[in-house]
């Protein structure tokens, strides 16, 4: 019983570690996409002339930033895939091992 609880505690500890690891990546990534997208809607709402600054030919800053937001979303999606496979899945797998140890000692 004691060993079971210790193994479970270890699994919970690994989950806490996993959550901390997720926070480390997801907080900045979320700030990045929310900031750039909501920031763009704020600009579009309150700084319409600035958004209309011409960039290339008739394409203005707004369309430029919209294109940048598309790129950013795609880059973040791909990066998340790699980070999750590299970091999160490993911790999740060790937590799973601890749980099966806890269940085996039952």
């Amino acid at each position: 019983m004691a060993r079971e609880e210790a193994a479970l505690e270890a699994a919970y500890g690994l989950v806490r570690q996993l959550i901390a690891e997720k926070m480390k990546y997801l907080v900045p990534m979320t700030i990045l996409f929310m900031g750039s997208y909501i920031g763009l809607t704020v600009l579009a709402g309150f700084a319409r002339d600035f958004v209309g600054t011409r960039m290339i030919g008739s394409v203005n800053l707004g369309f430029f930033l919209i294109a940048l937001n598309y790129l950013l979303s795609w880059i973040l999606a791909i990066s998340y895939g790699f980070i999750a496979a590299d970091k999160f899945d490993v911790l999740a797998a060790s937590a799973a091992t601890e749980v099966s140890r806890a269940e085996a000692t039952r």
Partner: protein
Amino acid sequence: MNPTLGIFIVILLITLAITYWAAKRTSTTADFYAADSRLTPAQNGFALAGDWCSAAAFLGFTGLTALYGMDGAFYALGPLVAFCTVLFLIAEPMRNTGKYTLGDIIRSRMQTRPSLLAAIAGTVVVNFAYLMPQMAGAGVLVRLLTGISYDWAVVFVGVSMIVYVAFGGMLATTWVQIVKAVLMLSAGAAIMAMILAQVHFNPLTLFADVEQKYTAKYLLPGNYLKNPFDQISLGLGYTLGLAGLPHVMTRFYTVPDAKAARRSVVWVMFLAGSFFAGTTLFGLAAADFVGQDAVRAADKGGNLALPLLAQYLGGGKGTLGGDLMLGFVAAVAVATILAVVSALTLSTSGAIAHDFYVNWFKHGQVEGRKEVWLARMTAVVIGVLAIALGILAQGVNVAVLVILAICVAASANFPVLILSLFWRRFNTGGVVGGMAVGLVSSVALAMIGPAMRGADALWPLVNPTVVSLPLGFLGAVLGTLIWGRDLKNEQRFDAFLLQVHTGITLK
């Protein structure tokens, strides 16, 4: 024969064949609600693209860009960015925690009856608010494209969706969505190639042309969303509302594990995202080639901009190429509606048959075979109700309902879902409080806003998300504090977190 009708009948026959095939493979509850969780990430990615791109996306974004310039491009960008939220915070925990519905997650976290009831209310309100305008849109669109009357068009769409869902469950719904996504993306790719050929592979020409025709103001924001706060509401509604839309989120139950759920989000972001980006160019091309006057003459809201553009690119009105392109795009638009209404019917049936009847009313004591039968019957009843509502909605301004659906999803479902997954002290009082405040504030503010009351609006915003979303969170937090500590629930939270992040349920 009218080419639209011909192409559409072919699509219909394909979907019926799929339903026949799927019906033979649908016998358990897991089959019916989640296609036995055996789809691949790519299949689910295509299905998500088919599910998420409603007619409002397929026809609306192009039309908005054609008539209002940059605001249309904002409408198209939001639904892609929304998937970042889903990818980072929702998709994997959903897959790990629930079985068939959003209610499942709340139930496994709180294990109380009032919280389940609140989750059911959130799902049913969002789904019906989404379903009704889709049915009304289907009526208008099918009438416009094939010439049959509005009422018959609604009946036809309703009966098709009932057949798909009641017989083929999630498997048929999924493959209808996949077929529709493939058709939609092929139509998009063909139109894109033809536009690029027209402008000699220099899209900048389009910007220069429309600027010359419609002045530089056309390329500025604010032509459609006049109130700056509406601009922000739209952004918030999309980025946080998608995560609260039950009919899209339940798609994550159709894959085997969290990794597959993750990969399917990356798929949909590239598939649907490229289509959304395409609609901005389609809109500019429609304004340039077809002209705003012709677009407006065909439909005041600009919804026929894409079919008209396709007709122009195919060779123009009266030519074989033009008629075929128009027919193809129009048929895909109808298929789009079918794919979305089927998903809504299935997800509502999950909330009523699985969450409400089986888990709430019968405390989970229903035999598997009977549950499948109940789910099928519920789908039929919901379908009939949707047909009735669709017919009643003729001529009513249903635009407010679309806004309402996404606003309630963002203001009620999203706060409750996210706090359930991440906050230890969150409790039944919080679920009920968040759901109630989010729901009531969204509905009340949308009803007194300009979308419903026009010039008599008591409040300036069409889309109230910017206010109702913080209110929903406030309701959830206050509800939690007023309810008091639920120590058993807090102790269970470690085991719940284990499940959320690894998919393991302790025996």
